[in-house]
């Protein structure tokens, strides 16, 4: 490297020896010092290393090539498009469509909603259930639990009792329109508040409902009377549920909010109106059917695990 300073008389440089024009030399490295000094800190006048020049050239060449090939510099109301003519929006759509096309090889068959035929077709069910498992985990598990076991406020999906019906067709409809959801066709389910009952009536009713769970209810008491008058039309004569109207059985684990006395009293006093969102805007018809079939298998999985 030629040092531009060499073009001037070295003896003119500040801190250079006035006779020889030489700068002081660092004894360790053998390089000249610049002559600057700040409270003991000095600097070497080391020549600019070649490797840095090459690195600058390479990175700048990379940048210039990228600017030529890709959209790069703004020009007021436009920008340089680049020789490759790439558009990130178009590329995203293309890739999405390529993936969708690949998936539709088998996913399209789920659009029909002929559940009984699909369930018998192993060539469809094997890829379908694997994909449905991820769909369930990503969209449903947050409320219904990773195994569909439910939780406080969210019904279990791996049992035998259904609020609206367990056939895949009914489940698909529930997923599509939701429950008490922002959808014109949504399912409507409400446990009214029985706050107009007297306190002792609610107590009696609660005792009866708690006992129902264990099958130890007093069929002759005041609770039974109140239950027959106020509850049985939705929950069934003996609280067995299964009327497919959104009211849970009070005799099995499908109970949603809990069947201890305090929870039952709270439910009686304030009512309940749980919400399941409608998924028709978010999932495709095939995906909804896929999920419905998957939910139908949850009970079987539960039974297999229990063995």
């Amino acid at each position, binding site marked *: 490297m030629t040092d531009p300073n060499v073009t001037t008389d070295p003896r003119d440089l*500040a801190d250079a020896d006035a006779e020889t024009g030489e700068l002081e030399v*660092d004894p*360790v*490295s053998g390089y000249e*010092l*610049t002559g*600057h*000094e*700040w*409270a*003991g*800190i*000095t*600097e*070497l*006048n*080391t*020549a*600019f*290393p070649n490797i*840095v020049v090459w*690195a*600058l050239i390479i*990175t*700048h060449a*990379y*940048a210039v090539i*990228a*600017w030529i090939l*890709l*959209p*790069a*510099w*703004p020009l007021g109301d436009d*920008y*340089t498009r*680049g020789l490759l003519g*790439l*558009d*990130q929006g178009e590329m*995203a759509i293309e890739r999405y469509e390529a*993936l969708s096309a*690949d*998936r539709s*090889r*088998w996913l399209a068959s789920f659009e029909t909603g002929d559940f009984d035929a699909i369930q018998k077709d192993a060539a469809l069910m094997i*890829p379908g259930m*694997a*994909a449905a*498992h*991820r769909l*369930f*985990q*990503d969209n449903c*598990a947050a409320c219904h639990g*990773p195994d569909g076991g439910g939780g406080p406020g969210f019904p279990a999906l791996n049992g035998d009792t259904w609020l609206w019906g367990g056939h895949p067709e009914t489940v698909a409809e529930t997923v599509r329109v939701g429950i008490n959801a922002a959808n014109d066709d949504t399912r409507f389910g409400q446990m009214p508040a029985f706050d107009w009952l007297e306190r002792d009536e609610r107590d009696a009713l609660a005792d009866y409902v708690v006992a129902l769970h264990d099958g130890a209810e007093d069929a002759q008491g005041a609770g039974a009377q109140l239950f027959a008058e106020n509850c049985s039309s939705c929950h069934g004569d003996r609280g067995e549920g299964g009327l497919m109207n959104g009211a849970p059985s009070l005799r099995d684990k499908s109970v949603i909010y809990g069947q201890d006395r305090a929870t039952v009293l709270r439910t009686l006093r304030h009512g309940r109106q749980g919400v399941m969102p409608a998924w028709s805007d978010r999932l495709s018809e095939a995906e909804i059917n896929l999920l419905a079939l998957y939910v139908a298998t949850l009970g079987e999985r539960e039974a297999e695990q229990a063995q």
Partner: protein
Amino acid sequence: MIAAGALGMTERKVAFALSFALAVLGLVMAAAAGQGVMAVHGAMAMLLGIFLIFRTGGALYDDGPADERFERYYDAPTRFGIAMTLVWAIVAMAVGVWVAALLYWPEGTPAVPWTSFGRLRPVHTTGIIFGFGGNALIATSFHVLQRTARARLAEHVSPWFVLIGYNLFCLWAVSGYVLGSTQSKEYAEAEWYADLWLVIVWVVYFVLYMRTLARRHEPHIYVANWYYLAFILVVAMLHIVNNIALPVGWGVAESFPVWAGVQDAMVQWWYGHNAVAFFLTAGFLAMLYYFLPVRSGRPIWSYRLSIVSFWGIVFFYVWVGSHHLHYTALPYWAQTLGMTFSVMLLVPSWAAAGNAIATLNGAWHKVRDDATLRFMFVAAVFYGLSTFEGSFLAIRPVNSLSHYTDWTVGHVHSGTLGWVAMIVFGAIYTVVPQLSGRDAMVSLRAIEWHFWLAVGGTLVYTVSMWNAGIVQGLMWRAYDENGALSYSFIESVQAMAPYYLARTVGGGMFLMGAVICAWNCRATMRAARGEAPDRPIVAQPAE
């Protein structure tokens, strides 16, 4: 704190008046707000003002300062700044370890709003960047500026105004987050009045810096001062532009930013990345350029490399913020520019790191024996590593794997733990004994312990986050042979458990090191044998 012995009578009166003004300002704020976060912040300012009124007022008629003070450097603000650096380090690192633990053990979140992850996470980032990093920058800048200019600070009150005002800003910021108040801009979460307050503090800092520099008795301005000035100037620009907002009212903390949509995102990441560049890099390069040659006793390896890396870093960095917005609504052309400038930025960054490491030629035996110098060496190495990683992650296809994963978190921490914190500790271990009139810290063994805890913690942290991020990125983009996603999102979360545990351990090690450092500094300051022995070249005229 404000030693009356150092302030003249006029200066004491000014300090007293400023304390009074702060108390009144706090009262007005609290009264205007009436309730909510701003009222609490007004009350905090008022209490601080009242405390300072007693502090300055009580010392108003003490013995006057000795005239010899002008023959010395003014180091009391640096001592205070270092103490605040260590306080913020322990608080903000502890919060960081706590939120890291919450990621592994989310059930551990207490059921009260202010301890939620969302509120505590910005306490960690603000506490570290502004509390720990900012105090270290201001404290060391006063030290380095005076030494390299061979001149005493131009003022006696304004250094205190800068430090106390700055810490009030930090306190307003983090207490606001805990109370649920945020501007929702990353690293700029503080509310509008705190932002305005910081502008005032920053202008005073700039004026003080320039006035002192103007009094220098050296013909040249040392590299460290170029970087400190770049830090002060550009941070002012970034802070003002990103925080322009219309308050909902003069008595409420909430405000509307003037930027909207993708422009807001671009301004935010122009700010965000240059907070990394000019807050977390330029200022700390200034520290490196001063303390490394001082500690190693070696000349800077290449003056020419210093010039190229300074101008390269300053010019290229301001372009690269858009690499935070790859594959978003930001136009492709802006992403290309961010990517290419990030790659070009690598050379000046490595030139600075290489210049630092080559400076150690002839002093490697000291690196082996002296843990303080080893801190600086490791800092330079991690600076090189994380700037390479940064340029690499800025390349669009690489970013498609790393974006939104914990790789980003690993990258940030390789910079903040490995580079920023290491150089701060190296600087602290050099400055603290000097300001205490001692040859060395009280415990050299404690420095060794701190060094190995810090290096070990950094490695455990960054390696676990690199693994976590790459695993996440690969899981998110994996499709099975039928074109369906191979993993649900929750599976990628469950896969993080071992890495999150390791990260908590690494962070905990780093925190332990910082606690040891704080103890060692306190012990050394208490065992002080006098003031710093070095002197300005000429006594400054009394004002």
